[in-house]
């Protein structure tokens, strides 16, 4: 998946988006579709990883984009449009999740400090898992389950950075945290996922799944 380049790294795109925003403000509402098209998938992913339900995530993105449309006149030119969209979507998703899951326990590692050093638990050699494995529904489900088991603060950072290729700075802005926190949480999320999926700890690859060359990937 090619890393997307944000408007701040790409002034031409930023200018293009600003022109679209001006057209929308002038009453050309159809320009809004063009403006949001590159970010639809990213927003859906962010919403889904918080809400963990397709219908809720879709509804959340629709409502977030409606909110963005209605408040487009509030958007400041110096900000990054995609970050603004992510912020709105994440806030809406969190609100929705809070309402639906009021009283439910969050994963225990939510309260851990970012500064705690995470020690990998498995050191088995893990040969590369071919991306073709993702064609298999059960593999994707296992990966999703592992991601689901992370605390929200780690999951959010991981989703934005590694699944949607959002820059460190933009992730920090969208989540309202420092870039240092983004890096720390990302490290922990990656290492936790690695452990969760590691064969030595009974990861999903040990369930009789056959990979290329008939060998397991570790």
């Amino acid at each position, binding site marked *: 998946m090619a890393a997307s380049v944000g408007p701040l790294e790409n002034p031409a795109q930023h200018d293009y988006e600003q022109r679209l925003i001006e057209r929308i403000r002038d009453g050309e*509402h159809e320009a809004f*579709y063009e403006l949001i098209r590159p970010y*639809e998938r990213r927003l859906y992913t962010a919403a889904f990883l918080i809400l963990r339900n397709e219908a809720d995530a879709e509804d959340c993105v*629709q409502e977030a984009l409606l909110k963005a449309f209605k408040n487009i006149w509030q958007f400041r030119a110096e900000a990054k449009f995609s970050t603004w969209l992510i912020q709105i979507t994440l806030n809406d998703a969190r609100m929705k999740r809070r309402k639906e899951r009021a009283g439910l326990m969050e994963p225990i590692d939510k309260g851990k400090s970012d500064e705690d050093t995470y020690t990998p638990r498995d050191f088995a050699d*893990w040969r590369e898992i071919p*991306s073709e494995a993702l064609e298999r529904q059960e593999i994707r489900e296992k990966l999703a389950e592992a991601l689901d088991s992370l605390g929200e603060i780690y999951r959010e950072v991981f989703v934005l950075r*590694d699944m949607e*290729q959002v820059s460190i700075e933009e992730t920090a802005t969208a989540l309202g945290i420092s870039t240092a926190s983004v890096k720390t949480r990302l*490290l922990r999320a990656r290492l936790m996922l*690695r452990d969760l999926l590691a064969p030595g700890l009974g990861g999903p690859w040990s369930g009789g799944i056959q990979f290329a060359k008939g060998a397991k990937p570790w």
Partner: protein
Amino acid sequence: MVIKCEDVWREISNYLDGEVHPELQLVIEEHFGECERCAAVLAGTRNVVQLYGDQRMMEVPAGFSRRLRQRLEGDMSRSRRTFLGWAVAAAASLFVAGGIEVARSSVFNRPSLRSEHARPSKRVPPDMIVIVAEDGKTFHVASCPFIHDKTRLRTITAHQAEQEGYAPCVRCMKKYLNATASSGPNPRKAELADENPIRGEGKPTEAQTPQEKFG
């Protein structure tokens, strides 16, 4: 330079993202060549990043974009209608306000009176011909003896006089209105039939304008 495994793990994410200093990068790479455990951690972490970064990991539901557009279109048209509604309502209020303003200026709202003590009339027929003095504050029937400045008189309608801020003379107008109320004459006719008519540039006599009293 020797680096501990714990320090490598702490930097492994930054290393993958190319976020470590070049010197540290060399040290870490050297460590990976010597430490199987850290090499395994690196390989597994890299694989996690590659797998989750694959588009197939998160598939947007079929028809997502279409449904999104439909919802946006529906809401946009509603907001357009709402806007139109507001616009119509705003235009209507402006129209009404404008109408009221016109009405005020012509009928309901008399301009501020030239005399702060005067009161606007309620019963003076608007088309009645009255006399006003340029520097005066009241309008009069032609025969009124209390017209102060007789050199610059104008003959206008009562309505026009009111628009210019003149108030009815409490003496002549009251007397005139009382008289017409009992006899019901045509105001115009009454004015024309006045016993001391002032027509055009006509002037009352000295005897009829007791300046000693009101001058």
